[in-house]
């Protein structure tokens, strides 16, 4: 037994030599990470896995940048694709960089001029969504199971704020002298109505007192 690298359980395991430690390390490396065991099942509601949340944050950040880039239609498409891909990868690795994507887009809009109304409403929606999902993604690891109930509670807060933001964007467009076509007005009203309807439909946080 000592030839196998140490003592058996109950016979004191502290005499492992350096070679034995190396053997243990190599064995562990050969087997791969054994950090998880599948013998424990915690029963929770419907879940989404953590990497999907992180992927969602990356997709939203990339969509935010792509929408701003291609929405104006002034800059080269190849560069836009490259920037979008870079944003996707960076946010997938560091989800908190989604906030940086919002700053980048805000700076771009500042330099590029007043966007059309549909683009402004979309950027307001995507920017807030990317930051909100990034806030969830930084809390979870790749294999963390995220209950959909948590997503539902966050979505309720999100739509309440987003409804106000969409209305604010509409008001800002009118104040800023932006040209609002009849179709734009209908689209903006539809977005606001959808957001309000979601705020009504989505679950509110229960107020049950702890036992």
């Amino acid at each position, binding site marked *: 037994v000592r030839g196998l690298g140490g003592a058996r359980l109950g016979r004191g395991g502290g005499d492992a030599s350096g070679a034995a430690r190396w053997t243990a390390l190599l064995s562990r490396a050969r087997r791969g990470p054994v950090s998880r065991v599948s013998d424990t099942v*915690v029963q929770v509601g419907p879940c989404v896995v953590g990497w999907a949340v992180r992927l969602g944050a990356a997709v939203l950040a990339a969509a935010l940048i792509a929408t701003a880039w291609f929405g104006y239609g002034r800059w080269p498409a190849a560069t836009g694709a490259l920037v979008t891909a870079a944003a996707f990868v960076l946010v997938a690795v560091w989800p908190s960089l989604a906030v940086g994507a919002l700053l980048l887009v805000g700076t771009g809009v500042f330099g590029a001029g007043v966007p059309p109304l549909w683009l402004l409403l979309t950027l307001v929606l995507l920017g807030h969504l990317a930051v909100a999902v990034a806030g969830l993604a930084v809390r979870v690891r790749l294999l963390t199971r995220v209950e959909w109930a948590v997503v539902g509670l966050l979505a309720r807060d999100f739509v309440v704020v987003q409804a106000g933001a969409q209305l604010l964007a509409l008001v800002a467009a009118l104040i800023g002298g932006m040209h609002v076509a009849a179709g734009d007005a209908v689209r903006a009203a539809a977005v606001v109505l959808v957001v309000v309807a979601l705020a009504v439909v989505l679950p509110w946080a229960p107020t049950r007192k702890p036992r």
Partner: protein
Amino acid sequence: MTAGQPPGTGAPWARARVSVAGAIVGVVLLAGGAVGGRADVAVLGAAPLVAAVWGFARRPSGDALVGAGAPSAEPRPGALDASLLVAGPHDAVAAVVGVRRGRREAAELLVATPGGWRELPVVVTTVRTGPQDIATVDAIALGPGLASASEPSAADTRQTVVLPSPRPLDELPLPPVLRGLTGGHESRRPGEGGGLRDVHPFAPGDRLRRIDWRVTARRAPDLHELYVRREHALAEAVVLLVVDSRDDVGPDPQTWRGSLLPRSQDPTSLDLARQAATSVAQRYLALGDRVGLDDLGVKRRPLPPGGGRRQLDRIRHALAVTRPEGDPLVRLRPPQLPSGALVYVFSTFLDDESAQVASQWRRSGHRVVAVDVLPTLRDRHLDDRERLALRLLVMARVDRLASLRDVDVEIVTWRDAPAVSLAGAARRGQRRPGAAS
């Protein structure tokens, strides 16, 4: 549940970094839009800023508490049912819960905590017996909008003791000498309860109802002498179960060094020993015999031989708490046994000590059954050095078991078909002169 600061007291929770960053970016965009006269730029930062400020305004205070609940029923090998409790302030909306078993991570969850409270059922699948960790759990509670987070809670661990379950056995060997005048076995002594021993002339002390009138009529028609039927007495066996708790090795030799733990679906040698000893004890106790328990690994008062259902419960509990403790014990002499006892030694026989003890008991006249509880080994994944070491170990063990056979110790391998081996040992014992006397 671990103690902590009550919800609603103490400092508010720390702000989340992403929310803080979102608020800063929102302020920058608002300021940029205001300075540049660009309402469209300002409105881009409004939503993250409002969301962050709203979340900060609702920051809870107090500690998150976690706890692992006790199993709902008597734990048995297979599946352990328990519950995890997560509690925080009333306005906490979610919690990141980490669950570990032993040194391994079992699950990480982000769950909703409606009202700041959540109970999560957990099922642990394991074939292991004895002291078992159900789970170690810790948590971080999250405030509204995930804009704030509590300090990580202190980890809470819940343990339970899983009693070994018996396996049905049929015939079992008996000791060379039976004891007492009651029991489930027929002895050679005259008495009552057993089969016909002989027919004998009536003597003072014989009961009148024992008179066999047919034999009397045949042998003494004039009734000058009466004949009585004499029966064998009943007797009980005394069985001592000796468990070698110094080893707790699994099927994977790489886990023997202790740095890796055996998988929960792999029974270890001590699990097999517990099951084997429980099965043997249950069968003997069902036959009315007396069964005791001793441990080769620790100096502890042995469980004296006894009978009945409560004795089986005592043996199961004693076996369940048996585990390797500290440095192995070096015994100067084998534990003392009741005279004429049948001895079962449950061991892996990976070293000489248990084999020597079994040999000494056999030489002193006891019938000894050595139960080999080493699990079926898996060696495919071993490297050459480890495989060679294992081969040497197995060769020494085979020699050790062969030397035990040479001194007439009966070997039963629990991982194969123990019921068949034990029934064979029982039949061999019946052919032995003086057996079941």
